[in-house]
């Protein structure tokens, strides 16, 4: 049985790591404001962050919070580390921005800096670049967070040589947003670390629902 070794969840302007809220901002903050506050709280300097669209920023932050304090990147072969993400809206939030830029023929301003983010897997690309992770990629679109799909697919990857995986859900749609990232490693599950969970659908659903949000 493979093991979930860390996870983070961002929702309702709060960041939870391994089930505990570690950062929260005012509920009234907009998504861009919240992302900026969470970036400051993370305390890293990564200039590329400022060029990203909201979905990539959200995925980046959630992944950083998940990786913080773990040895995931040093203990696993990054060429055999997969990134498997999912959401419901694909890249629709940025699609709307691009569409708006071409709606009016007298004010026509499509931009490559926007258009490149009209693919959901760009979030995977940003995570790969940040951490030099070069293994398998897949971006699935499903109506709701689908723990079974992610776990089943990761199991097939582990069967075909993948040793570790960054997985989860990164969604921005209008004012709604949510990110949930978890790390799976090819190591026998033991209960000696209380955070660790066996990689299966039940534990993914459990950790997804674990955080008690304060607002």
């Amino acid at each position, binding site marked *: 049985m493979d093991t979930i070794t860390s996870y983070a969840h961002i929702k309702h302007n709060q960041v939870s790591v391994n089930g505990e809220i570690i950062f929260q901002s005012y509920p009234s903050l907009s998504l861009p404001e919240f992302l900026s506050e969470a970036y400051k709280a993370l305390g890293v300097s990564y200039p590329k962050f400022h060029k990203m669209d909201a979905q990539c920023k959200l995925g980046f932050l959630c992944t950083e919070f998940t990786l913080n304090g773990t040895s995931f990147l040093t203990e696993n072969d990054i060429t055999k580390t997969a990134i498997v993400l999912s959401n419901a809206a694909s890249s629709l939030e940025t699609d709307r921005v*691009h569409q708006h830029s071409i709606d009016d023929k007298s004010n026509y301003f*499509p931009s490559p800096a926007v*258009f490149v983010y009209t693919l959901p*897997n760009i979030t995977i690309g940003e995570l790969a*670049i940040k951490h030099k*992770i070069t293994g398998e990629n*897949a971006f*699935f679109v499903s109506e709701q967070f689908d723990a079974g799909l992610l776990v089943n697919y990761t199991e097939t990857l582990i069967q075909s040589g993948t040793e570790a995986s960054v997985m989860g859900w990164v969604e921005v749609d209008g004012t709604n947003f949510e990110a949930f990232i978890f790390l799976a490693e090819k190591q026998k599950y033991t209960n000696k670390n209380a955070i660790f969970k066996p990689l299966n659908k039940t534990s993914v659903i459990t950790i997804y629902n674990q955080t008690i949000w304060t607002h």
Partner: protein
Amino acid sequence: MIFTSYNNIISPLGFSSQENYQAVSNSIIGVKKLKLPFSQDEFCVAKISDDKIKTHLSQITNADTHTKLEQLSILSIQDVLNQSGIHPKDNRTLLIYSTTKGNIDILENAYKNIDNKRVYLSAFAKHLQSYFQLAHTPVVLSNACISGILAIIIAKRFIEQGNYDNVLVCGGDILSEFTISGFKSFNALSNEPSKPFDANRVGINLGEAVSTILITNQKELATPYNTQIVSGSSANDANHISGPSRTGDGLFQCLTQILDKNTNDIGFISAHGTATPFNDEMESIAFDRAGLNTIPVNSLKGYYGHTLGAAGVLETVLSLESMKHQRLIKSEGFETKGVTGNITMVESHQDKIFSSFVKTASGFGGCNAAALFKKI
């Protein structure tokens, strides 16, 4: 063993795989200069004729309740169901849909009587599920330009895992102002039919297509090609979100994963070959690094343009036809080698005895994928 089975291609070159293979064998190209409804300028694109689509709509129940992509997808999937005789309601059958933009024309207000929610890919997929009464909610894969070939690789993995016997892989994307304006803003479009791997290539043509292939573990369904999917892999360059690795790292990693030492029986490589300066250069370097210098390479983008989410499925189907006919398809648009990697191009249609081929793709987000297909 996981086999390739019955399939369909709907493109400007025809509404079946056979029609498409015949057209390509006769060097008919689907790319043309056209005036599109949204612009005064002409664009060099591969567009499926609206009149041709209309002649097929009687095959669809309540055709006007579906978007263009839904209509084409229904026709394509229905053709594969008819040919194969598999039952969509079967609990052991899954549909994987590969697309980059799905019903993106809904954002352009293209429809009056369609629920705008179907711009969401999951709602689009559920619409297909309800049309065919599929037992399972389709899995939607949206991973840029590798989506099609990656969907085929994922189909193999899911069948091997034991949950399914048959996976229908359908890939589709339509021409839209959305994608055309975006690629134009990148200066990535060619105003003439594109020239993959050529010294004078300047960019891509966009195209539209839907292609479906059945992937199965049922030996009796392997009859169309008697070909198995030996291996498949994806990898990320971890280099840049909109430019490929200059050293072809991700694609090279895929190739080393899927190939064993003996590459003698590989008849050809069906490359991604978009005809952008950077993409083709990167691919040539990756093929060179992988020691595939003497294996002929073709790109089908010269016939179809870049069909995005359909490309990997469509190009796999035509490559299967090519292997069945033991005849290599010319890399249309190629005249003078314009890449630094030491590679061999398919410069004319030609007979060849061979038993396997490689399909590759690369895309935005630094993603790459490759798969090896082999006769059984």
